[in-house]
């Protein structure tokens, strides 16, 4: 399992983040992103995942993040800051399964090995 800091993610472009995630997940690793992805990066990750699905090799990803907060703070609005992504867990679809999820907690089951 790889825990990737928000600081590292901030320095990466969207494409670099998506490539890093997919390369790790395709080799069976679980990735935890401290600061998550933006909504646009999430759909681009799903899009890229679809192009890389191969029969008997890679069936896709399991990705779990929390719903966005209701709205940004007063200062976020004043300064036009977008709401930051929230902690996100991503893994191979055949190895990670969500047991339960709500606004505040994500419970997942991870299978190790075949």
């Amino acid at each position, binding site marked *: 399992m790889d825990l990737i800091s928000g600081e590292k993610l901030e320095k990466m472009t969207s494409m670099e983040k998506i490539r890093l995630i997919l390369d790790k997940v395709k080799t069976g690793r679980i990735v935890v992103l401290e600061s998550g992805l*933006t*909504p*646009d990066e*999430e*759909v*681009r990750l*799903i*899009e890229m*995942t*679809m*192009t890389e*699905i191969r*029969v008997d090799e890679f*069936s*896709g*990803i*399991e*990705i*779990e*993040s*929390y*719903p*966005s907060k*209701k*709205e940004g703070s007063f200062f976020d609005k004043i300064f036009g800051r*977008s709401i930051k992504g929230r902690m996100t867990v991503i893994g191979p*679809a*055949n190895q990670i399964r969500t047991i339960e*999820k*709500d*606004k505040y907690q994500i419970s997942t089951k991870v299978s190790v090995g075949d």
Partner: protein
Amino acid sequence: MGFISSFKNSLGAWIKSIFKKKRAKIGIYGPPNAGKTTLAKRIVHDWSGDDDFGNVSHIPHETRRAMRKEGVVINANGSSIELDIVDTPGMATKIDFKEFMAFGLSEAESKKRAKEATEGVIEAIKWLDDLDGVLLVMDSTEDPYTQVNVTVIGNMEARKLPLLIVANKMDLPNASPDRIKAAFPQHAMVQISALEGSNIDDLYKAIAINFG
């Protein structure tokens, strides 16, 4: 050319405001088997009389190409709105052909459907860039905290585009729209049965309010 084009746009907006004719391109999104095509068929049937819009199946990813119906005029809540309805393929983060085999499809058919389903998800994502609003269809009997729901809602919020949640399958005994409302309280929600047509007038009123 820039001035002429800008003038044309302004003139168009001015004429539109005078005649109060509103038009919006609305995408129907959701996970596979939430009832997107059943809903799209009902809207198109109710307001254009067309009965030949999309196929419905219990096998996931039946819709693997986006279907579009232009110029559907909905009259509700004292106003009129013209919609281009786009029924999109089910969004998913994983597609395993073996899941289709469990529905009785052959291995070859399952692999073909899986390949087409991946292309369908990509097409659904591409449509997000070209819409004025989204009807997000959720199965009221299922857990609403799916990543597809979270991602679609996050994208609409980031783009500041209107979103209406449709809590579908209210005809089923274990439907629980309250769970959906609790999960996404910041968005308008209408509970319906697209299959039976119950509460469908409430949906049309909500469409007029949210997209008009």
